[in-house]
């Protein structure tokens, strides 16, 4: 594996440090030997062909894999230096710091207001709820479109608006990291552009990790890119994902160091 050089000369503490990570589903190895650092207040894109383990890796960052029966993790995922898989760590607390936005917008069948307030209420938020809802909706670039219908059902919103509502809901609990699993793949081009613009604004305050099938999207929006690829065992036909290359997005898309990255991003396979 090759990594980007730190030419800045200063040491910036990563949000996540993944060390020798293996992920299994039952007895099947899904990801092997992943090592990478996620830097703060940047957008890190995870790209790779279908089935290479992109979403699996993303779900490791907030222990979402545990919701899948038989999933098991080896190695370490350090969040600000603390292993989130260490005994005694409560996954619910982890997920409070590390929010997630999914491929299909999944608002609750409640009002717009209640969707945004939901997490804060569970967490026993003591501040001004109206203010929190407004701030979160503004931050998600949705306020102007919904301010006069906060009590209306979230399900009446368009797909793009619903996705921005899910982002508002994620940031209302004031997380540190936002994980996004193909957040725009179900949206039209205009709604996609709005989400991409929003991500650029959000990275001022949050670290964002995004899985995307759309390589041009990764090239447009991310600061760093991780390329995952499927390795196949010839004798058993077993397949698992490995990290082939991780570096500055501009480098990955102009002069990738690994031939497999070169072939994948230029559409020579995959």
């Amino acid at each position: 594996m090759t990594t980007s050089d730190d030419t800045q000369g200063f040491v910036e503490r990563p949000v996540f440090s993944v060390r020798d990570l293996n992920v299994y589903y039952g007895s099947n190895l899904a990801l092997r030997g992943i090592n990478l650092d996620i830097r703060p207040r940047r957008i890190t894109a995870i790209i790779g062909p279908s089935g290479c383990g992109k979403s699996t890796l993303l779900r490791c960052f907030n222990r979402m894999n545990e919701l899948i029966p038989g999933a098991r993790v080896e190695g370490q995922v350090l969040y600000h230096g603390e292993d989130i898989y260490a005994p005694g760590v409560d996954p619910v607390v982890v997920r409070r710091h590390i929010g997630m936005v999914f491929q299909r917008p999944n608002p609750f069948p409640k009002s717009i207001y209640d969707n945004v307030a939901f997490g804060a209420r569970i967490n026993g938020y003591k501040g001004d709820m109206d203010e929190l809802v407004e701030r979160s909706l503004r931050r998600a670039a949705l306020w102007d479109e919904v301010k006069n219908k906060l009590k209306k059902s979230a399900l009446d919103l368009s797909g793009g608006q619903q996705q921005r509502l899910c982002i508002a809901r994620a940031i209302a609990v004031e997380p540190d990291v936002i994980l996004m699993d193909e957040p725009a793949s179900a949206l039209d081009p205009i709604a996609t552009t709005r989400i991409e613009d929003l991500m650029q604004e959000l990275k001022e305050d949050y670290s964002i990790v995004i899985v995307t099938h759309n390589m041009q999207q990764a090239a447009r929006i991310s600061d760093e890119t991780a390329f995952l690829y499927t390795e196949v065992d010839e004798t058993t036909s077993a397949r698992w994902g490995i990290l082939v290359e991780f570096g500055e997005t501009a480098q990955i898309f102009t002069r990738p160091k690994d031939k497999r990255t070169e072939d994948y991003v230029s559409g020579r396979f995959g």
Partner: protein
Amino acid sequence: MRESFHRQLEILDQDVVRLGALVERSTELATNALIEGNKELARRVREGDDDIDRLFLDIEKRALAMLAQQAPVARDLRLIVAILRVVTDLERAGDLAFNIAELVEVEDFRASTIKPVRSLVADLGRTATRLLGMAIDAWTAKDETLASALAQEDDRLDDLHAELLGRLVELKGEDALGPAIRLAMIGRYFERIGDHAVNLGERVRYFVTGDEEHLG
């Protein structure tokens, strides 16, 4: 997945090689026209420049369309960026051959007054043509080693150019002044053709290594 785009890109690159061959031929003809004092040959160089310009514009247009429509990355991106630079160098080298041909048409460089520098001028022209040929070979094969060898050959061309200027200053007789000035210009044009050839080599190195230093 992107087969048709990659095929288009291959054809584009072949056209760059074709443009290179036209410019190399033009430089060679201009050199021969100069050595032989052949105004007919010089006229052919001037007329051939239209073909060079047309092909240059066509390649540039197609490369820009690919940038806009195909969003190329990695080696594809580097190839298109390199092509856009290379065709500009080739087109400029073609213009310089054109400028040399123009001077051949108005001046007879076989006059006895400039006899002392004639073989030097011929050497300069042949060296520039060879350098351009080497650069086009390096581009065709995307051969970084060949590209790196160009700088050395260019030093020889620069030496020849400096020597020519020195010798022109020493020419005797009032009749020599006009031809000497024109030969100084021609020497400069050949030297510039060599620089464009060196640039071509740099673009080959950029394409192969991805190092932006070779775009400058």
